[in-house]
C-alpha cells in the first residue's frame, strides 16, 4: 500500500472512531463546567450501548422495525439522563464524594448492562446498525470527501454537537449559569441562580450525551453488544476534558488525536510490522497518562470549584 492510501485509510477510519469519545467528552464537559466530576461516564456509556442495541435486537419486523436505531438512541439518552439524575441526587443533594460515587456509578451501570444483556440477549449477536450515508456532492470531493463526508449520519450529528455545545456554554444564559456554578457557586447563589438545579440539569444533559455515545458504539461502530464494549472510553473521555481545557473545540482536537493514534496502531498491525498485540491495545491508555501529565497547568483555566459539593447552609 502506498503511503497516501495509508494516510487516507487512517483518517477515514479515525474520524468515525472519534465520535464516541467526542460526544461523551462533550457531555462530561457540561458536568465539569458545572463543578461535578462525573467518573460514572463509563457506566452510563455501558448502559447506553446496551439500551441502544436492544430495540435493533428485538424488533425485526413490524411498523417500528424501520426506526429501531432512532428508538435505540432515544432509549440510550433517556437512560443516560436518568443515571445522570441518580448521580446528581448522590453528589448534589447528598453532597457525596464525587470520585468514589463516580466509581460506584460506573460499577452500577456496567453491572446492569451486563446482567440484563446476559439475560435478554445471551451471547454476542450482531445487528444491522446505522448504514453509511454519503452527503451528496460533498462526498465527491477527492480525499476530503471520503475522510469527512462518507460516514453514517450520526457522525455528522456528533460533529455538529461541537459548535452547538460551544454556543450553549459560551453564548446562552444557561451556559453562563453552568460556568458560574462551577466557578463560584456562592456568587451564583447570591445572584439568584439555583445552584443545585443548574447542576442537576448539567448532569442530566451530560448523562444523556454519554448514553448517546454508548449507543453509537453498539449501533454504529461495533454493531453488536458485549459487556466490555466501552473498554475505558468513558474514563478516556473524562481525561479528554482536561486535555481540551474544558473547551468543546479543544475536546474535538483531543478526540481526533486519540482515535487517530488508535487507527494508526491498527494500520501498523495490518501493515505486518511485528509488535505484540497487547502493547498495541495499551497505547491509548498510556497516552492518557502522558497527556494528563502534560496538561496540569491547564487546571487554572478550568472550573475552579470542580469536585467540591456546594452547601449553601455552610458559613465561610
Amino acid at each position, binding site marked *: 500500500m502506498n503511503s497516501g492510501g495509508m494516510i487516507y485509510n487512517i483518517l477515514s477510519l479515525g474520524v468515525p472512531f472519534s465520535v464516541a469519545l467526542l460526544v461523551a467528552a462533550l457531555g462530561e464537559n457540561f458536568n465539569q463546567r458545572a463543578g461535578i466530576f462525573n467518573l460514572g461516564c463509563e457506566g452510563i456509556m455501558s448502559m447506553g450501548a446496551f439500551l441502544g442495541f436492544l430495540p435493533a435486537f428485538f424488533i425485526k419486523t413490524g411498523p417500528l422495525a424501520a426506526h429501531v436505531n432512532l428508538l435505540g438512541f432515544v432509549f440510550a439518552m433517556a437512560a443516560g439522563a436518568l443515571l445522570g439524575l441518580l448521580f446528581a441526587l448522590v453528589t448534589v443533594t447528598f453532597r457525596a464524594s464525587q470520585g468514589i460515587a463516580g466509581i460506584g456509578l460506573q460499577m452500577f451501570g456496567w453491572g446492569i448492562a451486563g446482567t440484563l444483556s446476559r439475560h435478554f440477549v445471551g451471547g454476542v449477536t450482531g445487528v444491522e446498525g446505522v448504514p453509511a450515508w454519503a452527503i451528496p456532492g460533498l462526498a465527491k470531493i477527492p480525499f476530503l470527501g471520503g475522510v469527512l463526508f462518507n460516514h453514517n449520519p450520526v457522525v455528522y450529528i456528533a460533529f455538529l454537537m461541537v459548535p452547538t455545545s460551544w454556543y450553549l456554554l459560551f453564548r446562552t444564559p444557561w451556559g453562563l449559569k453552568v460556568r458560574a456554578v462551577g466557578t463560584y457557586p456562592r456568587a451564583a447563589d447570591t445572584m439568584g441562580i439555583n445552584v443545585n438545579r443548574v447542576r442537576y440539569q448539567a448532569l442530566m444533559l451530560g448523562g444523556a450525551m454519554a448514553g448517546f455515545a454508548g449507543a453509537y458504539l453498539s449501533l454504529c461502530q461495533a454493531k453488536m453488544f458485549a459487556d466490555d464494549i466501552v473498554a475505558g472510553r468513558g474514563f478516556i473521555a473524562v481525561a479528554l476534558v482536561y486535555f481540551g481545557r474544558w473547551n468543546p473545540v479543544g475536546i474535538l482536537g483531543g478526540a481526533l488525536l486519540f482515535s487517530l493514534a488508535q487507527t494508526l496502531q491498527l494500520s501498523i498491525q495490518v501493515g505486518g510490522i511485528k509488535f505484540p498485540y497487547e502493547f498495541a491495545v495499551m497505547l491509548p491508555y498510556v497516552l*492518557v497518562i502522558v497527556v494528563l501529565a502534560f496538561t496540569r497547568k491547564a487546571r487554572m483555566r478550568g472550573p475552579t470549584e470542580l469536585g467540591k459539593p456546594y452547601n449553601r447552609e455552610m458559613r465561610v
Partner: protein
Amino acid sequence: MNKIKLLYRLGVILTAALAAALVGAMVLTAIGASPIATYTTIFTGPFADKYGITEVLVRAIPLILVGLGIAISFRSGILNIGAEGQILMGILASTAMALAFPGAPKVILLPLMFMAGALGGAFWGGIAGFLRAKLGVNEILSTVMLNYIAAQFYTYLLRGPMIDSNELLTGSGTPQSMRLPKAAWLDRIVPETRLHAGLILALVLAFCVYSLLWRTTWGYRLRAAGAEAKAARYAGVHVERSLITAMLLAGGFAGLAGAVEVSGVHHRAIEGISSGYGFSGIVVALFGGLHPAGIVPAAVFFGVLLVGADMTQRSAGVPANMILVLQGVVILAIVSAKMYINNAYALERFARFFRRSGTAKIPRSVKTGGQP
C-alpha cells in the same frame, strides 16, 4: 439528645441499606428472578456446609489485604482505584520469583515471594502516587488507566514469555504460567478445603495497619495530610511525600493480596485470579469505615456476598454481573449516607419532626445538632 442522634444515624444507615437492597431487587425482578429467593440464597447459601464457610474466608483474605491498602490511601487523601492492576503486578512478580528459585526451601521462598509481590504492586501504585504528587495528575484517572495497562501486560506475559511450556507442547495454549514448586504453597489450615494460612497473615497485617496509622506519629502525619492537606503542610508535614508513601503502601498491599492468592489458592498465575477483588476491595474499605477493625468484618460480609452470588448464578441463573450492580449501589448508598450522618442541619430537622409529633422529649441543645 444522644438517643435522638443514635436513632438518626441508625435511620440513615437503614435507609441506605434498604435503598441499596431495593435497587438490587428491581434489577433482579427485571431479569425474572425472585429478589427474596435470591437474597436468601446469597446470605444463607454459603453457611450450609463447611466448604461454604471456609470459601467465604478464602474470599475474605484478598479483600482484607486490598481493603487495608485502599484504607491507607483514602485516609492519606489519594483515591486509589488501581488495586486491580496492582494485584496483577503482584501476581506476576511473586510467580516469577517462585519460578526463579524452584529449589529454595519454604522458609526462604515464601517470604521472598510475598516481598516480590508487594514490591510489584508497590511499583505500580507508586507510579500513580508519583504522578499525582509531582505532576498533579488526577490519581483516579491514572490508576484506572494503569489497570487497563496491567491487564494487557498480564495477558501478554502469560501468553508469551511466561507461558507454561507444557501448554506449548500440547498445543492447547491456555494462557497460564508453570505450576509453582510445592515450597511456594501456603499451608491449608482446614483440611479438604481451600482455606489457607494467608488468613493469619491478613489478620496480623490488619493489626499492623491499625498500629501504624493510629498509634505512631508517622501514621498521624499520613492521616493529617489526607484530612486537610493545607493545614498539614502548614504544620510541617511533607504532603507530597506522604501521598507517594500512601500509594506505595496501598499498591504493596494489593500486590501482596495477589501473591497470597497465587500461593494459597491457585499455585500458578492464570487469567481471572483477581476477578474484581481490586474493585470489591474499595467497597470493603468504605463499608468498613476505612478502619482495620471495620474492614475485617466487612471483608467477611463481602466474602459471603461473593460466594452467595456464585451460588445464585448456579442455582437461579442470575448472571455474575449482578454482584457489580450490588457493589455499585452499596458504594452510592455509603457515600450518600456518610454525608447525611454528620449533617447537623438534617439532624436538627429530624429532631424537630420528633418534637412536633411529640413522641420524644428533646432538650433545646439539639437545635445545634450537637455539632460545634
